[in-house]
């Protein structure tokens, strides 16, 4: 049984509403299965400029530039992408630039791909080591509230804050399911 444990609310829709209400003008992302619906909602929202990137590291530059120009930026990435932003996070920390990072987890809960496990297991620790505040959402119903709280922490505290969305929420990817889609 690979279905998500908690599907009691439409977390991408509610999370998009949080981002819109808090006035995020720029959303940077690298395409990701877990973020698929939230990305599509952001793309369809004329209030947000969606920026598709080739690697997550670009997002840190994007967010820093946006904030210099007075715009709030949120980044959507998979846990593997956290490994790509580590050095750039030094700028966010040193310059006290607020940025919201929403991470869909891999390598964490029932993962089938062993290559995802090392980064998935290290994600929270790596973020904390670089001064990022970390909140973990283990149920769909928790996600919007965590995103709201992390955004307030980031922009109230001039720092980076990340919400890690568990594979329990997203569902556990398997090649079998992909083949059947």
């Amino acid at each position, binding site marked *: 049984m690979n279905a998500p444990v908690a599907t009691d609310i439409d977390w991408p829709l509610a999370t998009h509403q949080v981002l819109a209400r808090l006035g995020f003008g720029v959303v940077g992302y690298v395409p990701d299965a877990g973020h698929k619906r939230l990305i599509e909602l952001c793309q369809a929202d004329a209030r947000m400029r969606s920026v598709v*990137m080739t690697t997550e590291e*670009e997002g840190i530059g994007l967010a820093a530039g946006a904030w210099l*120009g*007075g715009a709030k930026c949120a980044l959507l990435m998979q846990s593997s992408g956290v490994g790509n932003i580590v050095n750039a996070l030094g700028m966010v920390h040193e310059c006290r630039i607020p940025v919201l990072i929403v991470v869909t987890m891999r390598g964490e809960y029932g993962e089938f791909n062993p290559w995802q496990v090392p980064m998935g297991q290290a994600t929270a620790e790596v973020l904390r080591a670089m001064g990022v505040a970390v909140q973990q959402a283990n149920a769909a119903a928790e996600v919007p509230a965590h995103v709201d709280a992390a955004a307030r922490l980031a922009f109230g505290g001039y720092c980076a804050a990340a919400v890690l969305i568990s594979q329990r929420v997203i569902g556990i990817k398997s090649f079998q399911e992909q083949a059947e889609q």
Partner: protein
Amino acid sequence: MTLLRRDVVKALLAERGELLVVAGLGSTAWDCTAAGDSPLTFPMWGAMGCAAMMGLGLALAQPRRRVLVLTGDGEMLMGLGSLATIGVQKPQNLMVAVIDNERYGETGMQATHTAHGVNLAAMARAAGFASGVLVRDMAGVAALRHSLQQGAGPHFAQIKVAAEKVPLVLPPRDGALLKNRFRQALLGASAALQ
């Protein structure tokens, strides 16, 4: 006559008006400072590879202002994917100008890929920039100034300069100071309350 980096940067920033500048770490940041420190120049002391994307974020947030990223060939090479990202977004108010001395200037003047023929301007054109030019003389720099002020971008320039050591002219290092002075100069005193 080979271009000299300080002459090029000074010419690009002369009478800069409302231009917003992101300076990539290392020599280009020192060049911008040598041309005259400004709160509307954000010199990077780290995050190598991120300068062009900072320019994109700034250009999207401030569509009515012109944005210039001045960076080095080594810094640009570390963020080549951002050329593709900018090519997709197509911000008309952005120019990325690479001061290309074909060297890693801060680490001992080792050759970069551009010394071996990698053509960044062609990469930018292929990625969807409105223009991507290779500049070797001051007439070319003067043409860039024109594009910078009124052309519909995104523009890209790879400006070949001499591999010379120039005096260090350093901007402030404190990142929070650099951020705050930029935001207050651009957005007003209320930026501190945002």
